[in-house]
């Protein structure tokens, strides 16, 4: 684990979380949530949790995002907040 790398990813993580929650377009929010998932997956690989990283890459960043997108397509794309 490399401290500088750790800090950079953590900061990006917070930024991604904030953007994902504040974008008014839900499709973008879902995609940024996917980015968030990949960042956290990187973080875990970096912390030595390779199995968790693998699962997060496939489940958190992959399938979760697809499910969110599927729901957004079937409902409404705009959000009031």
């Amino acid at each position: 684990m490399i401290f500088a790398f750790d800090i950079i990813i953590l900061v990006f993580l917070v930024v991604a979380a904030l953007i994902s929650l504040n974008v008014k377009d839900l499709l973008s929010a879902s995609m940024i949530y996917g980015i968030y998932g990949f960042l956290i997956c990187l973080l875990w690989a970096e912390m030595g949790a390779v199995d968790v990283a693998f699962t997060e890459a496939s489940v958190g960043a992959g399938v979760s995002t697809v499910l969110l997108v599927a729901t957004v397509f079937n409902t409404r794309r705009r959000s009031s907040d």
Partner: protein
Amino acid sequence: MLSKVFATIAVAITGSILLYGVSDFPAFGDPHSPANAGVPGSESVSLYFIEESYKDTKVPNIVTSVLADYRGYDTMFETVVIFAAGMAIFAILRVVGNKEETAAKAAEEDSFTNGDHNRIIVGTTVRIVVPVIQLFALYVVAHGHHSPGGGFQGGVILGASFIIIALAENLNAALRRLSELNYVRLAAIGIFIYAAFGIMAQVLGSNFLDYGALQPIFMTDGPEMARSHSMLGVEIGVAFTVTAIMFAIYANLASRGQLVKGL
């Protein structure tokens, strides 16, 4: 507005309690913290796994051996959680028996072959890529003993390969390969495989999920290799359930439970 005030108060309280606790933690990355090395006077579980798991199971990936053997009971219920989520989603969303839709389904069927050139390009690419993805998924399942991976990851990738087919062509194309009847069955069979390994151990006079007792079945030298083989079997069971449910959740969410057309 009220909810924002309430949220701020709740977040402030929870956050300050948590941060108050942080100052008491062992430093980040300390190899001798209680979590990593146990407390004086009692044996550390984590050190036991690191030092003994290879001898017990002959599986180099400690995470796999802990997941599938030592804490296999948890993992079985984790699979049950997925199964339950799948069943809950079908129970909530699935719309059954709509004549009009089935007619529309028949009309939809051929949109891949005629017209819509984007779909042809994407669809052909996907047809080339999907076997590779599936092969990789099987590798991940089978190679979980030696490298990161295992039933969940492989299952999710395998499920994702069906999702890709559904995205690139249409949902029916994917459902032709894994129909509704079959994915429910596949999910049940997956957990059944998992539990069967446990029950076989019980039949052979040991506790539930004690893979070491399966030695006479696998005809291995010692209980270690029996554990290693059983873990592979269990991972395959997990992969079945996860594949089926991941695809099924997508299919239901994408088509609002009608299982036609999709996105």
